[in-house]
């Protein structure tokens, strides 16, 4: 009963946020500085009401409450209704303008500058072509592409569709990737002898994943589908294929590289899996060098570079509010990085000694998210799908706690 109410609440709150974002320009759609054409607004633009930041915060908190109730009642929920709700939530978000981020325009901008103007995304700053119709929607101005060559080459295929067509095509790709993650969670939980519903609900109803990752149309959803594909192949005993998929995930976005050591350590045939992963990586590298030259290799060090950045919503920065520092000053960053490296090494050691590699990778991802000085809301998708495969409740609890943190630091300041 409460479960049904919570599902209805999630759908209603998502629909409210999306229709408000589509109806009037507001901070929900950062791309609005480029204009607010119909193709950006989407079809849900007819309600004509305004949500103030405090309204948006309240709706987020309502979604979070519904999520927690749904998780608590998940065993009582009919499977069809749960899956139907997840599909409905994704469908609503697909129809939305990009929420709380305009990153997808950055992806498409690099693709357009390469295909239409012959510029190298790894050597040319974003928004370099001011006369391009996508320019007004791009918010990055001084950034060469930090994404993997596979992703970059994939976006080239969208360019012939034009700006509006490529935006909708990319939205469709991200939405389908997230739904495919739901499918893989279901299959892998069954393969691991677990009930699929709780894992599917942990990911598919997660308000941070839904609004920030799917609603923001971030390529992290694509990366996680490839990571989850690699995990599924490993679980099915197809270790070489899993290693290939793991390396390809890194070629989408190098953040996936954190999972690869665990995938290799968790393999029954470690040496063979390592060889296949390295061979695939070498192939990707060769294609990158041919397509983009040496500059393309910079994408590999994205995680390292992010440790030099400072986001006020990271855990170290938020701790500073309690302990008396501002942002993530260098000593705090050094301590956090050291703890992070030690934590990840500990997880790797446990995997080496036989611990479940998927769970260890999830714990390592959590360590990274907690200790990084650069934490964006949609990075939650790095953790939740892996946590959804865990056997025990501790990882699910940790993923929920991290979700609550990500939402709280962004919504609570808007309430007063």
């Amino acid at each position, binding site marked *: *009963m409460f479960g*049904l109410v919570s599902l209805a609440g999630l759908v*209603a*709150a998502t629909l409210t946020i999306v229709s408000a974002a589509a109806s009037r320009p507001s901070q929900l759609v950062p791309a609005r500085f480029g204009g607010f054409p119909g193709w950006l607004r989407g079809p849900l633009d007819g309600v004509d009401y305004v949500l103030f930041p405090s309204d948006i915060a309240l709706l987020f908190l309502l979604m979070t409450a519904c999520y927690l109730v749904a998780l608590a009642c998940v065993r009582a929920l009919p499977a069809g209704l749960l899956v139907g709700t997840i599909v409905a939530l994704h469908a609503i978000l697909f129809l939305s303008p990009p929420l709380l981020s305009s990153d997808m325009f950055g992806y498409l901008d690099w693709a357009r500058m390469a295909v239409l103007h012959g*510029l190298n995304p790894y050597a040319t700053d974003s928004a370099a*072509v001011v006369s391009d119709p996508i320019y007004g929607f791009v918010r990055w101005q001084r950034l060469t592409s930090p994404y993997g060559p596979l992703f970059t080459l994939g976006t080239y295929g969208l360019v012939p569709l034009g700006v509006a067509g490529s935006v909708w095509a990319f939205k469709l790709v991200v939405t389908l990737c997230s739904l495919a993650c739901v499918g893989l969670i279901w299959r892998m939980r069954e393969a691991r002898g677990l009930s699929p519903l709780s894992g599917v609900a942990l990911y598919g109803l997660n308000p941070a994943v839904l609004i920030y990752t799917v609603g923001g149309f971030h390529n992290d959803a694509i990366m996680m589908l490839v990571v989850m594909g690699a995990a599924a192949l490993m679980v099915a005993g197809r270790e070489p294929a899993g290693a290939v998929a793991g390396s390809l995930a890194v070629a989408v976005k190098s953040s996936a590289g954190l999972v690869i050591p665990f995938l290799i350590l968790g393999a029954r045939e470690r040496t063979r899996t390592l060889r296949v992963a390295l061979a695939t990586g070498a192939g990707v590298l060769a294609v990158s060098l041919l397509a983009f030259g040496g500059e393309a290799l910079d994408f590999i060090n994205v995680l390292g570079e992010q440790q030099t950045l400072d986001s006020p919503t990271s855990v170290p920065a938020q701790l500073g509010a309690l302990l008396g520092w501002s942002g993530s000053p260098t000593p705090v960053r050094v301590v956090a990085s050291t703890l992070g490296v030690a934590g990840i090494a500990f997880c790797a050691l446990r995997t080496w000694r036989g611990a479940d590699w998927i769970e260890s990778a999830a714990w390592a991802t959590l360590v990274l998210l907690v200790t990084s000085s650069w934490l964006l809301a949609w990075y939650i998708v790095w953790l939740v799908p892996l946590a959804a495969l865990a056997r025990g409740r501790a990882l699910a609890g940790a993923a929920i706690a991290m979700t609550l943190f990500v939402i709280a630091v962004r919504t609570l300041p808007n309430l007063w």
Partner: protein
Amino acid sequence: MKPAWHALAVVAMLGALTAGCQRSSDSDRTSVPLLSREIGLAYERAYQAHMRMTTQRFDEYVLAEVAGRCGPVVISPADRPRWEFVCGVAYRTRRGGRGSASYTVAVDRRGCFVGRSSEYPAQVFESVLRRPGPNPLARIQSCP
């Protein structure tokens, strides 16, 4: 109460909540202070874009100060589309240069606007492409 009715009740409650949110109408699509501020911000972005286009350099702080000031020309009844303003923009660069420009601005029903100025050439040379392109300062567009 059956579960379905609970779900319906939640949807109805949320419907009431959203109905209580401030409804917008044509009459509040923009205001002179809001448009004045937004035209200034849009001009600043256009100035940065113009600099980027002609020099390939981006400087977020190229302008030290921008001020917009708008006055209505045509504000038709709520059911009519025409909302037009004349806006003047004055700016000071970080290096001490000063300038101004005027725009005729059309505002749509969502408050988004397009400003056109005849004081700038329609095309400027786009350095990265080595060919002329539309001048970002001749036509500025944004939403509040």
